[in-house]
């Protein structure tokens, strides 16, 4: 009896070790800058670079020939001086004309200035099959320094499943404009964690009720005992979910601190206004200094930029936004997207120019 038990334990550990081990892997070692990358260098087998855009891109040199049918795990070990950014990996298979968003994976980075290993389940993308010949990699989605220790493709294993489960559960849901209406919450395999909790609760309820039914054989006793157990279980899950919420709030706090701490009110207002149009707040500030208080203005921005109009109303008061017959016309078009007919020419002259298609027109004819 003793020996079979030892053999069974040995077999269990052997299987566990085998299932945790990675079998086949492919490293990506040679990278070339594609765009938005400066100072790319290799030091002690660590790739260092500085990003100058919202999507710095590196591409692999030569054909990789990755067996996508077998290697379904991507492991990236890297660090950045920016916390909680979003990285993206594009892939191109034999015969693909180029890179596109459908053939890409997203991952989230962790706290800054620390090495983290990120595991990405490539099998989730239905286009991940065949032979992959080239990779394009954007480690972060903004300006900052990055160090990449390794990028490798692996076969899936139990360790990987646990790793991705963990990473997915703790994926940082960064507050966004939509958060005021909507919070996604944690997801695993694309399904809300709540669903797993509900199924676990149903299974546990069945077990608890069966157990007490077998023990007491009296429905009244089951009703007396089982609900309290179920509720305790439910509250336990609730507290566990809260652990993740606390972690998310901590990360939000860190991100906010890194962005806003030590800044003046004006800098904070600029940072919370601009998003990708960094100078819009400062443009409004200049307009506020030029346009006399109490006068009216209309704002000309590319179509669909309603948010900018609301911001201008908010920041420029006591000047008034008026869509028709305004005394001043504020033009903000750094990317040259406004149609010429949308900018009034007749009865207007240039009042102030801030360069780069940002200027103020003044109505010459008083109505």
């Amino acid at each position, binding site marked *: 009896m003793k020996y079979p038990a030892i053999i069974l334990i040995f077999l269990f550990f052997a299987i566990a070790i085998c299932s945790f081990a990675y079998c086949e892997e492919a490293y990506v070692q040679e990278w070339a800058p594609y765009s938005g990358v400066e100072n790319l260098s290799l030091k002690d087998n660590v790739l260092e670079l500085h990003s100058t855009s919202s999507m710095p891109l590196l591409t692999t040199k030569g054909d990789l020939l990755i067996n996508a049918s077998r290697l379904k795990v991507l492991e990236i070990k890297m660090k950045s001086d920016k916390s909680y950014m979003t990285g993206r990996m594009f892939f191109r298979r034999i015969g693909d004309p180029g890179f596109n968003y459908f053939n890409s994976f997203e991952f989230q980075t962790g706290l800054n200035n620390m090495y983290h290993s990120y595991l990405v389940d490539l099998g989730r993308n239905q286009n991940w099959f065949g032979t992959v010949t080239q990779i394009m990699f954007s480690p972060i989605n903004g300006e900052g320094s990055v160090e990449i220790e390794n990028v490798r493709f692996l076969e899936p294993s139990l360790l990987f499943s646990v790793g991705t489960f963990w990473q997915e559960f703790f994926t940082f849901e960064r507050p966004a404009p939509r958060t005021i209406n909507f919070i996604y919450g944690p997801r695993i395999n694309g399904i809300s964690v709540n669903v797993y909790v509900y199924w676990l609760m149903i299974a546990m309820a069945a077990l608890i009720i069966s157990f007490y039914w077998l023990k007491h054989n009296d429905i009244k006793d089951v009703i007396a005992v089982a609900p309290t157990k179920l509720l305790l279980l439910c509250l336990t899950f609730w507290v566990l979910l809260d652990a993740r919420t606390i972690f998310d*709030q901590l990360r939000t706090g860190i991100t906010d601190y890194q962005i*806003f701490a030590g800044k003046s009110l004006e800098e904070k207002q600029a940072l919370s206004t601009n998003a990708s149009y960094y100078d819009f707040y400062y443009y409004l500030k200049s307009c506020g200094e030029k346009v006399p208080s109490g006068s009216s203005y209309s704002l000309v921005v590319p179509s669909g930029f309603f948010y900018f109009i609301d911001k201008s109303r908010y920041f420029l008061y006591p000047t008034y936004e008026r869509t028709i017959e305004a005394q001043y016309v504020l033009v903000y078009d750094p990317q040259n997207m406004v149609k010429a007919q949308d900018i009034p020419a007749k009865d207007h002259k240039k009042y102030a120019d801030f360069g780069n298609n940002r200027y103020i027109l003044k109505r010459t004819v008083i109505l």
Partner: protein
Amino acid sequence: MIIFKLAFAYIFPVLLGYLLVALISSDEGKLSAPEKIAISYGIGVGILTFIMFLIGAFRLPMDLTTILVVCAILFAYPLIKVIKNMRVPNMSTVRIDLKSIKWYEWLLLALISLRIFYSYFSALIKPVEDVDAFADWGLRAKVFFFDHGLSLDRTRGYFFGGSHSDYPINIPLLQTWIFNVLGSWNDLLIKAIFPTFLLALVIVFYCSMRRISGRPFSLFSTYLLTTLPFLIYHSASAYTDFPLSFYFFSSFIYLVAFLLSGDLSFLTISSLFAGFSSWTKNEGIMFALVDAIVLVVYLYYLNKHEIKSRLETVARYIAPILALFIPWSVFKLIHSIPTSSEQTLHFSQLFKNINRIPVLLGDFYKKSFFYGHWDIAWFTFFLVLLISFFIKRSRRENLFVLLGILLCFLAYGAVYFLSDAYVWIINGTNINRNILAFMPLVMYYICSTIVEIFNDGFDSKRKNSSKP
């Protein structure tokens, strides 16, 4: 200097509220000191902004001096009366024996404090940035501040603040008050308004739980309330949904306190909060109606007093609500401020809109159960409901809370069913913010029913253990 100004800006409404609360509830033992202060914040804010509204409506300059003078005149009598009745507080009721607090209670207290700290940090690290917060509420506050009034001149731009003119102005005027005290426009420092509502909510929730359960479970319940991600997010943004949530919860919970004790001071506090709900957001009047219906149901079925006395109770409840609601409605009438088209009910479409029902139910089901706004709170709510049904024992006041929740559902359902606000369900912007308004009440139901279930469970165990 700015610290002192800011402290004054936030303490002054609490003092106003405290004077009123002290007048309403003169008995020392009824409300604990923290609870009184929490209530005072909500009531004080409402009273202060309503005074500002009246100043503005009569076209007086809405500056700091005028506001302080009017407040001094109006609050001279309550102040004298409170000073007259002031007694040296019995410190034994205030002092807490720290040694009696168990480690897990410290832990829960730490977790609750962490959430409140996070809310303050998150609010005060950055200025107003959520869209409606600046495009609507924030803009109106700024316009009122720069114009020293309610901007009622239609010939100039931005009539009545420049945004949705039919929205009540409790929160914009509170921001204006802070700008007035600071002497400048600062959209960062006004954000402490919202975490302070969280602090007040946490205290009121804890105290309401404490009336029916022990300290450990009251702390645990309060901790559960602070775990709701959507509630915490809103407590740091500058939307008015969270203050509405505080006002409605407080109105209902003091109504429940009245049902439990029959103490009329709770009824007055509840009606003030109900009135301020309608002064915070348009749907607040709907919540005041929910409160009133629950009161009427209670008086009709359970109150043993004479009909005249019951009618007096209803009148006593409705009077403060109307005192706040009527001037606001008359003001809108005088200045021809129409109700927005989305909020107008179209009863003629009663049968035409029948296909909206599955959409509304489906949206609630999805948003409540499968996203991160409320974690598993709604699942727990239905579990608790199911268990209490099986146990067939529920506290009377819990049935009223359940009725309140049901009425909230029906009221929102009716609005979306009969109005063009339905579009906000389709585009997914509103339902969670609507749920936020009565979510603390749902949490109260969950926690108070758990107290009930556990008591019942333990009683049964005791019965079982006495079996041979």
